[in-house]
């Protein structure tokens, strides 16, 4: 085979993937960008050009959605990391019933998102909810609180549910990571006289760094794009205080048919996620992958 024919054969082999990517990824991306330059709706379309972006950045909803998305993502991802790591350390110890507990702990994660959302809505219900019931029984509150309809608590209430829902994934990842830490490192550190804390800090954590980075990055991206929990629990309310990019874009595009405006938000959402994707690509290519 000549060099040229090899070259052609190579491209022929990747052609199907390129065609699929073009149809399923690049076309929607380009079309969304073009829509974002207009105020397209079902009944009328006006081309606005860059004016559309000027309007978008003046839109106070953009800053609100951005702020909500960042608070939501940072809290959920961070606490999933802490909770996941903590529970993994516990489940890594030998004790009776460990296998059972390892099975139970993944339950929130395998539960369908919509079901989780409905259950948490009930838990937070001001009159019927378990949360208010127990808080009152313990004397912590004297009247029923409306967790999901108070602007100052709604976002944190859904964040709490999201942490509960997602942390088992982190647990599983870190548990696998813990089992991969070479035991001889622990033995060596013990001989050197390191205590529990020092062993965790200087042996466990450094060995698990790659897996923590990857898991954290994944949970960041997933959380940023997580839709059904918020949508079912609050629908973005009250006063748009729990809307994040995906829920707001959905409302704009498919409830109000404002495709132009929705595309603008989607482009910003895309750019933000692109940053995380680039970090991921960089990490995975550096030093021969994610180790």
């Amino acid at each position, binding site marked *: 085979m000549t060099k040229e024919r090899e070259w052609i054969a190579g491209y022929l082999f990747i052609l199907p993937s390129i065609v699929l990517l073009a149809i399923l990824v690049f076309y929607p991306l380009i079309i969304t960008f073009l829509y974002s330059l207009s105020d397209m709706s079902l*009944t*009328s379309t006006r081309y606005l050009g860059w004016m559309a972006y000027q309007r978008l950045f003046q839109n106070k909803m953009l800053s609100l959605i951005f702020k909500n998305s960042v608070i939501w993502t940072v809290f959920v991802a961070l606490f999933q990391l802490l909770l996941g790591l903590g529970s993994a350390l516990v489940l890594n110890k030998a004790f009776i019933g460990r296998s059972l507990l390892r099975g139970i702990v993944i339950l929130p994660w395998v539960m369908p998102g919509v079901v989780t959302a409905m259950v948490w809505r009930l838990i937070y219900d001001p009159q019927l909810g378990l949360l208010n019931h127990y808080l009152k029984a313990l004397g912590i509150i004297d009247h029923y609180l409306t967790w999901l*309809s*108070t*602007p100052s608590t709604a976002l944190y209430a859904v964040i709490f549910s999201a942490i509960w829902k997602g942390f088992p994934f982190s647990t599983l990842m870190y548990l696998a990571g813990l089992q991969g830490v070479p035991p001889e490192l622990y033995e060596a550190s013990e001989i050197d006289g390191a205590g529990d804390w020092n062993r965790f800090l200087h042996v466990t954590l450094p060995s698990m760094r790659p897996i923590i980075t990857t898991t954290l990055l994944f949970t960041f991206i997933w959380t940023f794009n997580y839709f059904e929990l918020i949508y079912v629990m609050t629908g973005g*309310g009250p006063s*748009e205080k729990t809307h994040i990019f995906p829920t707001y874009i959905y409302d704009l595009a498919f409830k109000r048919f404002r495709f132009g405006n929705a595309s603008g938000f989607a482009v910003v959402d895309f750019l933000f996620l692109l940053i995380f994707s680039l970090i991921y690509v960089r990490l995975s290519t550096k030093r021969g992958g994610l180790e």
Partner: protein
Amino acid sequence: MKNGLLFTIILVVATLTISLVAGAEKVTLNVWLMKQADVNLLKAQDEALAKFKELYPDIDVKFTVFPYSEYRDKLLIAAAAGAPPDISVVDQIWNPEFSAAGFVIPLDDYVAQSKSVKKENYFSGAWDSALYQGKLYGVPFDVGVWALNYYNKAFFKDAGLDPEKPPVTWDEFYEVGKKMTGPEKWGTALWVGKGDAVQCITDALTFSNGGSVLNQDFTKCLLDQPAAIDSMKFFKKLQEINPAGEVSRTEEDSFQLFTAGKLGMFWYGEWGQDTVTARAPQMEWAIGNFPKPANGKSVGTFGGWNMVIYKNAPHKDAAWKFIEYWTSKEINEKVSSLTPANVEAAKSFLNNKRKFPDVVFQQLTQALYRPIFPRYPDLAEIQRNATTAILTGEKDIEAALKDATAEINTLLNDYYSSNK
């Protein structure tokens, strides 16, 4: 054998020709309606349709029904794609959007020649809801009014009040509600929900107080005026006689609290009567007028559905015949699940199918329609956000309404400047 084959061919060709000729004469109308669950109503619709086909043997009618939650999406998408039905019902608040987009045609010429479709035969609030820039784009089919004051007589007796004398004014409503409120029971339940229903309540309060959402030609928002501000002050005060959580409750959630016997009073439309009877057969209940300010008038907000003809309909004259028939007194009364928009049909419907027909009829005749603006859903959303901000205390009433007014004015200017 050969002859037999020839004969068969001739027969087939002849049959095809006859059916093609006959088919060319027969017109089919595609009609989209809302899905109804009531078996009696469906039977009445079938009967009425059969009679129409007897009257007009050359017109065939095909019904397609959708549940409310999907209905608007389906209609808008079909119309935007150029494949709408010939006729459909549209919610009053969608009518301007469909008119402005040119999806539906003005019906003034048909009305001018019609014997039965006349303005005076319909509730004026319903008729006017179909007007857009001076032309009529729909014929009212059925109507409803937000809201009437449903009340549980037991709550009145327990509070030492006369159950035959429901509160008339805002102050009375609040005072009565306060006497009813106790552990696990409340005077009333508010709700904000997710759709555009809560605006019907807040608009009705503003209307009753002599105010309005927009000015007369729908170009300027008036929600920052005293009439609207005072009505929202009253609305917020009702939080004291209401179970917490109204911002995330829907009208249905609150309605369930009423039928579960937790509320003394509840604002809802007349179409809720069957639901109360079905869910709370033991409850002694009655209906009073929507409360009014001391020196105001009890004005409700109109809701309901209009019948429209689409621009793409190939047989508009046949479509008009169907609309004339379907909205006539005799038929309208039978095929409508809400109160018929035809006034005579409504009287008879209310007397036969509703309790307290006089109260309902009076409330209907005094009702006003919501702003006529093609981007009404966006306007309603701004109003709902203001209501949420007021109820949660995020903004004080004046500030919330001032912000909403500014936002609505921007929306109006934006629309009118790009659609002249």
